[in-house]
């Protein structure tokens, strides 16, 4: 049995170093760090006082409606996918041959917390109808899949910090298995919030 060759045709990233793949790469080669002090008032009592937050707000690259309906983790996924798609030359492909595998380790936790506040303070009818698509772990994959009209499958293998790497491996498998010709794959996360930071610190996973 011959193994089908798979190639990477486009890259995208929005990171603590920069808002694009190319600028991230330049910053990496320059040896820059994306870690910075957490000086917001909400961080004052946290056991950790720094984080590698995004260099650029994802909303800078999204239309207002898209930004409004997506969780922050999904905004990052869409911004990176848009860049990768453009970098690949905006492929003209049958949607039935295009798949998406985009993962997150935690996903829409800030939406979950914000909507829990809405529930407690204003009641059940004030919980946003967008809550479920914003908090589900396959939300980033779904957002990218809808944007690119991918119909060969939209998946989100979740495996903690390895989620994005596993997504790329699954994309490779989908092409080799003949289920898709192009797969947009990767990972996105947005957990710089007091609760996840306190929780990771409590398990002594932060320095």
């Amino acid at each position: 049995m011959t193994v089908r060759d798979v190639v990477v045709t486009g890259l995208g990233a929005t990171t603590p170093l920069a808002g694009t793949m190319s600028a991230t790469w330049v910053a990496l080669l320059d040896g820059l760090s994306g870690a910075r002090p957490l000086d917001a008032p909400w961080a004052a009592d946290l056991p950790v006082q720094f984080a590698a937050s995004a260099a650029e707000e994802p909303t800078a690259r999204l239309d207002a409606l898209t930004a409004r309906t997506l969780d922050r983790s999904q905004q990052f996924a869409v911004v990176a996918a848009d860049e990768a798609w453009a970098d690949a030359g905006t492929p003209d492909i049958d949607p039935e041959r295009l798949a998406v595998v985009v993962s997150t380790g935690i996903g829409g936790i800030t939406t979950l917390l914000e909507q829990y506040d809405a529930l407690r303070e204003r009641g059940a009818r004030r919980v946003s109808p967008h809550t479920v698509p914003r908090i589900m772990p396959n939300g980033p994959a779904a957002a990218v899949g809808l944007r690119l009209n991918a119909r060969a499958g939209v998946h989100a293998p979740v495996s903690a910090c390895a989620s994005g790497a596993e997504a790329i491996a699954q994309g490779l498998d989908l092409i080799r298995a003949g289920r898709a010709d192009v797969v947009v794959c990767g990972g996105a996360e947005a957990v710089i919030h007091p609760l996840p930071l306190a929780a990771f610190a409590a398990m002594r996973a932060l320095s």
Partner: protein
Amino acid sequence: MTDNDILAAFADIVYEVARIDASIVTPEKRFVDDFDIDSLSMVEIATAAEDKFGVSIPDSALSDLKTVGDAVAFIAKAGVAA
């Protein structure tokens, strides 16, 4: 509140939820076909309209509101709190 007042206030809600410019939110416009507003955003619009106009828009009525004019008429008939 006149129908025009309701329309103007309703158009602000449509802009807030779906980022449709208020100037094109006119009575004959259809939420789905003209504005591409999905069912989840329609629920948001209805909830915001309940808050703003002091009316109740049950889910069973929401599915019948196909145009901006339908919504304005429903709100006017339901009795707008000034």
